[in-house]
């Protein structure tokens, strides 16, 4: 008997483990989202005597607070900006569940939210929640990820500009020569459309047409569809295997690879591994995301540029916009306070601009500019609290050209 019970126990343990991985562990995250709200509630009672922003409660609905970025960069900056402006901050985490997010939104409205900053788990499934917020007179900010609704305010980074920044940096470094283009998943519009559009904005196609640049891995003749190699699911090991074949082909053809445009960091990491295992040396290589392992590669001289989206600044812009919305300022007369965000990151205009969504809605938006990180300005990621200097420089000395910051 006892034997059988043991088996049942171990089995339920495994099931619990499985539930954990898919659900994201609701129990563990509850305290993290409750903590900020409690402290905010405590200060809330004291602020009854303060000015116009007294009843400005700003609510954030996270889709997945487990991802380290939110707790480390976005949340503290939203909270601080809101509280510095006399508002009250509350939040909830949906643990990757669309249903949970709808419940969260209703709860946050019930707690008296005036503005909802929304990181939608799904751009469409969250719409009933957006409607509920609108019905209750709550303004909605789509944060980092778009929600298809005509009445939202959209705050994000410029994804086309990311591609442009990648190609700008590489083209400046290598204006002529043989290029390899490594793209992401063929089903992702970022990989097939937006980022390549950014590359062309930077002058890649013009340089190819002028015969200054030759793309070594053309899959056909159509631009940009056949230019470069796609990477299923942005997988690092797939990018590595593809790059190895491209290097072998280049060597067999007697071509030298002068530069590599990789769309993001997971593919760039695979490309770097291929260059290492082939002892090819390190032609200038691009990436985006500011992943720790890639920034370490930049510090070591293995990756030339990493386009970084400074989430600290994104949080500040969202907090400031929420405060304005609380006051009832309409989007047309809104303006970002001078000096709130770093000049290099700030939207091109301090007043909100129109943004046309893929679904055909025109919404007001703040579109922030990404920051290209090379060895020259590595200090930005350290100063911004994105990564510690020790971590950044951990393997710099093993690379071909360690950054000055790390010596």
């Amino acid at each position, binding site marked *: 008997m006892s034997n059988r019970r043991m088996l049942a126990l171990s089995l339920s343990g495994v099931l619990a483990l499985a539930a954990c991985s898919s659900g994201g562990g609701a129990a563990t995250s509850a305290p993290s989202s409750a903590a900020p709200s409690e402290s905010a509630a405590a200060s809330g009672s004291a602020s009854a005597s303060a000015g116009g922003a007294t009843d400005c409660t700003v609510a954030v609905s996270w889709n997945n607070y487990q991802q380290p970025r939110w707790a480390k960069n976005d949340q503290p900056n939203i909270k601080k900006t809101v509280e510095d402006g006399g508002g009250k901050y509350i939040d909830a985490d949906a643990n990757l569940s669309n249903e949970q997010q709808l419940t969260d939104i209703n709860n946050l409205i019930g707690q008296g939210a005036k503005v909802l900053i929304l990181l939608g788990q799904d751009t469409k499934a969250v719409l009933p929640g957006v409607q509920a917020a609108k019905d209750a007179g709550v303004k909605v900010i789509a944060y980092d990820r778009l929600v298809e609704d005509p009445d939202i305010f959209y705050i994000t980074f410029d994804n086309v500009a990311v591609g442009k920044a990648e190609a700008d940096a590489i083209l400046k470094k290598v204006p002529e020569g043989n290029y390899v283009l490594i793209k992401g998943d063929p089903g992702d519009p970022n990989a097939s459309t937006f980022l390549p559009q950014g590359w062309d904005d930077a002058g890649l196609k013009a340089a190819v047409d002028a015969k200054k640049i030759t793309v070594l891995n053309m*899959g056909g003749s159509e631009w940009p569809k056949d230019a470069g190699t796609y990477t299923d699911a942005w997988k690092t*090991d797939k990018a590595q295997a593809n790059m190895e074949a491209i290097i072998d082909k280049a060597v067999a053809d007697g071509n030298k690879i002068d530069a590599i445009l990789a769309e993001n960091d997971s593919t760039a990491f695979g490309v770097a591994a291929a260059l290492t295992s082939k002892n090819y040396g390190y032609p200038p290589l691009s990436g985006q995301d500011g992943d720790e392992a890639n920034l370490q590669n930049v510090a070591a001289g293995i990756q030339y540029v990493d386009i970084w989206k400074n989430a600290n600044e994104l949080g500040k812009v969202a907090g400031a916009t929420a405060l304005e919305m609380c006051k009832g300022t309409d989007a047309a007369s809104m303006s970002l306070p001078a000096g709130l965000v770093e000049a290099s990151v700030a939207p091109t205009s301090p007043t909100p601009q129109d943004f046309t969504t893929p679904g055909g809605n025109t919404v007001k938006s703040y579109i922030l500019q990404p920051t290209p990180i090379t060895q020259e300005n590595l200090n930005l990621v350290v100063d911004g609290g994105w990564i510690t200097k020790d971590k950044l420089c951990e393997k710099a000395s093993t690379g071909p050209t360690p950054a000055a910051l790390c010596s």
Partner: protein
Amino acid sequence: MTNVADATPVPGQAQPPARTSLRDLIAQTEIDLRLFGMLIAFVLILITFNVISGGKFFSPNNMVTLAVQAAGIAIIATGMVLVIVSRNIDLSVGSLVGVIAMTYALLMTNILPDILGLPADFPFRWAIALAIGIALGAAIGALQGFIIAYIGVPSFIVTLGGLLSIRGIVWYLSSGAAVSGLDANFQLLGGGAQGSLGGPLTWALAVVGCIAIIALLISGRRQRRRFGFPVRPMWAEVLIGVVGCLIVVGVANFANNNFWPEGLADRVAAQQNWGPKPEGGWRIPAGLPNPLILLLGVTIVMTWLATRRRFGRYVYAYGGNPDAAELAGINTRREILKTYVLMGVLCALAAAIASARLNGATLDVGQSYELYVIAAAVVGGTSFAGGIGTIPGAVLGAFVLASLAYGLSFIGVNSPGQNVVAGIVLILAVGFDTLNRRRGTVGSSR
């Protein structure tokens, strides 16, 4: 039981009557026709790519890349054969590779140096990490195998659960970030110029291989004589010996024609004071890459386990007829459990290659390996009906699939095109096999 005999040529199979058609001549050499056919298909694929690329494809450098890319999948596929033969499946291999690769990365960047205080120059740190990874793989495999064999939850469900939950654990291990910077010695497991045997050792290995082939042929003949089994005709023995030796020596010669990249050779020469650079630069043969050596070892051990040990015989017997095997007194549950432990160990080896090649681990290492591994086993002649499948076949299957992926990306076909071809080849391979088998069972003299 005919199925079992079909899978692994058993000494003493009825000799076909002595006629002199080509088919019978081949039959007299007792070469596995299915394996032979696949080898020819593999060669045809290589030739096709070579023609399309204008003769640039079939070079030592490219073939070494191909072999290294195939090695991880092939290693796991050798175990998948036994799992499928015993009428089970393992969908968790990709996630297992992911979690063990991440473990290696964390061990070497974090746990060993910072928590256990073993600095980077601590001797055999790579081996310590490898041992921990293998133990972890065996433990997870044992847990899954236990639930499958002793509790009786279908393997499809258990390993599907494993696929999901273990991949989730990878996330928790690293909080979603990629981890990079492995031990320099560990990186050699991933191949590359320095992670290869080098010229002299490759030649030595070829000589050893040649001697082993001849020794095996002689001892096999003696054994058969001793027990009164029919033996191969002498010409067949000599043919197999000579061709086998020629292949081994040819591969070694081919691999030794892959030289260190110039930049690397110059750098190492300067570091180690090799003296003045010879005319035409350093020409240092790289030889066979380490992942391929690992695969070779795994293939030999697994084939031995499958065909020469009681464990292997039991697994095939169970797959051929589970009830009969159980009634014959085989402890089938224990054997099933063992297959999953073995899978865990093989996943740990594949994870070592994958993480060494990346010099780190990302969240997606090993993702969708399960599909490639199962495809490799099936292309290699393993049957889902159970009881049928060979380990060299699965290795060859992995090489067929890897050659398609590598060859297509070499000639510039993008990944959607690669997937289309891989899928079609999978269906074709199994289709031919099924037709062949049907014809074999209906009309053959066996």
